[in-house]
C-alpha cells in the first residue's frame, strides 16, 4: 500500500459532527461527535454494525440528511477548505457528484428502472460537458469500459433490469466517478453481491483510486474488506468513534473491547467474505443510550467507571481508543 502523505491540508476534515433525528419516541443521536481527516489518495474505513451511524455520517457529508426529521446540530465539515455546513443548497449541488460522490449499498435499486443505462450515465456527464449527443455517448461508453463492462456501446441501450447485479454496481460506480470527484464514499458497496463479484468490484475500486487519485471513505461491517482496502480505520459504535488507527496497528493491537470483539467474530482474516460479525447482545437503540460508554452493557470488561463516557486515550502515535481500561483505574484482571 502506498504511503499516504498526511503533511498537507486534509482534503476533507470532519470535526465533531453531530446529526440527530427528532422522532416521536425521542431524539436519535445517529452521529454524535465524529471527527476525522481525509487526505488525497487515502482510504478511510468506517467500521461498525448496522445502525451505528456509518451511513448517516456519509449522508451528512453530502448534505442529504433525510428531512424533516434529521438535522445536523453541530460540528464542521471542511472540504478543500470550504465549510459544507455553511454552503448554500446550490453550492452543495455543485459539490455533489463533482467533488464528493458516493456508491450506495444496493446495486439493484440505485439505478432508475425506467431510464436506460446510457441516459443515466449521460445525464451525469452532461452537467460538466457540453457537446453534441454523439460525443456524450462516446464518453459514456468509454466510462463503462473503464469500469470493465463488456461491449459498452450496446449496454448503453440496456435498462437496469436487463443487467446482473454486479454489472449494475459497475454502472453505479461509473456514474459516481463520471465527474472525477476527489472524494468517493462507498457505503457497503458489495454487501448484496456474491463473493466473486465482490472481489472483482473491490479490485475495481482500487484501480479507480489509482488512476484518479481520489480519496475513498469505505463504509463496511466487514473487517476482512477493511484489511484489504483501507489505510486508516475508525471503529464506530452508537454514533461515535471508539477507536481510530492506521490499519496495521489496528489489527496488530486492537485496543477497544468492541474492536476486539469484532476481530474475534471474524474467523479468519484471509477469508474476505467474513460476513456479519456476531457479538453477544444487541446494538443499543440510539434513542435510549446509557449515559456512559454505550458498549458497556455488552462489554466483558465493564466496571463502575464506565458509567461516564471515557476520555480519548492515545495508544500510540495516531492510534486512539475511548475506553477506561486504558486509564490507571482499571485493575481487575480477567
Amino acid at each position: 500500500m502506498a504511503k499516504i502523505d498526511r503533511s498537507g491540508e486534509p482534503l476533507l476534515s470532519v470535526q465533531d459532527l453531530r446529526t440527530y433525528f427528532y422522532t416521536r419516541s425521542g431524539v436519535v443521536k445517529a452521529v454524535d461527535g465524529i471527527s476525522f481527516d481525509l487526505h488525497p489518495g487515502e482510504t478511510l474505513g468506517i467500521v461498525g454494525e448496522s445502525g451505528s451511524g456509518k451511513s448517516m455520517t456519509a449522508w451528512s457529508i453530502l448534505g442529504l440528511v433525510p428531512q424533516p426529521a434529521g438535522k445536523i446540530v453541530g460540528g464542521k465539515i471542511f472540504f478543500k477548505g470550504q465549510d459544507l455546513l455553511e454552503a448554500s443548497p446550490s453550492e452543495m449541488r455543485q459539490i455533489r457528484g463533482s467533488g464528493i460522490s458516493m456508491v450506495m449499498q444496493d446495486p439493484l435499486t440505485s439505478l432508475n428502472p425506467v431510464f436506460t443505462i446510457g441516459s443515466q450515465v449521460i445525464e451525469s456527464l452532461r452537467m460538466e460537458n457540453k457537446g453534441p449527443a454523439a460525443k456524450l455517448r462516446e464518453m459514456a461508453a468509454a466510462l463503462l469500459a473503464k469500469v470493465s463492462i463488456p461491449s459498452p456501446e450496446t449496454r448503453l441501450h440496456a435498462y437496469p433490469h436487463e443487467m446482473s447485479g454486479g454489472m449494475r454496481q459497475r454502472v453505479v460506480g461509473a456514474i459516481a466517478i463520471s465527474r472525477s470527484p476527489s472524494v468517493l464514499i462507498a457505503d457497503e458497496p458489495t454487501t448484496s453481491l456474491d463473493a466473486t463479484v465482490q472481489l472483482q468490484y473491490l479490485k475495481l475500486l482500487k484501480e479507480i483510486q489509482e488512476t484518479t487519485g481520489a480519496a475513498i471513505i469505505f463504509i463496511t461491517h466487514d473487517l476482512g474488506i477493511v484489511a484489504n482496502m483501507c489505510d486508516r480505520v475508525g471503529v464506530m459504535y452508537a454514533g461515535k468513534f471508539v477507536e481510530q488507527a492506521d490499519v496495521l496497528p489496528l489489527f496488530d493491537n486492537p485496543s477497544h473491547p468492541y474492536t476486539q470483539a469484532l476481530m474475534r467474530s471474524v474467523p479468519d482474516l484471509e477469508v474476505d467474505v467474513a460476513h456479519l460479525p456476531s457479538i453477544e447482545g444487541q446494538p443499543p437503540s440510539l434513542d435510549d443510550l446509557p449515559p456512559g460508554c454505550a458498549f458497556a452493557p455488552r462489554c466483558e470488561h465493564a466496571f463502575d467507571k464506565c458509567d461516564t463516557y471515557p476520555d480519548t486515550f492515545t495508544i500510540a502515535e495516531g492510534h486512539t481508543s475511548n475506553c477506561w481500561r486504558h486509564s490507571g483505574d482499571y485493575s481487575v484482571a480477567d
Partner: protein
Amino acid sequence: MTRFILIRLVQAFFTLLALSAGVFFAVHLTGDVVSFLTSPQDTPQSVALMRQSLGLDRPIYVQYWIFLQNVVQGDFGHSWTWGRPASSLLLERLPNTLKLAASGFVLTLILGIPLGILSAVYRDSVFDRIAKFISVLGMAAPQFWVGIMLLLFFGAYLGWLPTFGIGGPTHYILPSFSLSLFLIAGMVRLTRSSMMEVLDSEYIKFARVKGLHERAVIWKHALRNAIIPVLTFAGISLGGLLNGSIVVEVVFAWPGLGRLMLTSVTQRDYAVLEATVLTAGAMYILMAMLVDILYAYIDPRMREE
C-alpha cells in the same frame, strides 16, 4: 413492443366477444322479449307469427350469430319504447356522455396529479392539507349527493350556474365536478403515496448524489416512476367515470348514455339495454387496452411479460 400491442388487441377482441355473449344470453335467456310486445288478447298464432318475424323461433346460438352480424353493421334492433332504432338513440346520446366523461377525466388529471405531487413533495404544507381534505371528503361523499348539494348552492341559492340539461360551457362545470370529485380524491391519494414511496427510493437518493438539480430529481426521475400506478388507476377510473355518469346524468338531467341505460332498465327496453351496455363495456375495454399499452411504454419492465 409491436408484439405486445398485438397481444393486447387480440385479448381486447375476445373480452369484447365474451361481453357481448354475456349480455345477449343474459337478456335472452331470462326474459321473454315477446311477452312485453304482446298483450293477453293476442292469439297464439299472432304471437307465434311475431316470434317468427323477430327470428326468436330459431336456436339461440343462431340468434346470437345474427345479433353479432347486426351489431357489427351498427344495428342493435328496434327500441319499442322510443319507436326508433336503438343505434340512432345511441348516436344521439353517446357524444353527450363522452363530453361529460372527458371533462371529468381532464379535471381528475389536472387537479388530482399535481395536487398529489405537491402534497408529497411539500409535506405538511398548505397543498398537503388541501389534498388531504379533498381526498377524505371525496372518498366518502356520495356523488349524487355532492351533485345535489352543488346544484342547491351554486344553482338554486347563488344562481351562478345552470343546474340541468346541456348547453354552453357553464353547463359542464357542476356535472363534471360532481362526477370527478371521487376520482380526484383517489388520484390525489394515490399520486401522493406513490410519489412519497418513490422519493424514498435508492435511485432518487443516487440521483441527488450525482448532483442533479432538485427539479430534475422530482419531475424527471421521480415522476416517471410514480406515474406508473397512477396510470393504472386512471385506467380503472374510466370504469368509475361510466358509473358516475349514470348517477350524475340523473341528477343534472343530462341527456346521455347513462340516463338512457337507466330508463331502458326500468322500461325493459332490451334493444336499448344491449346497445348501451355493449357500448359502455366496449369503451371500457378499449380504454383499458390503451392504458396497458401506455403503461408498457412508460415502464420497460412490463414489455416482456
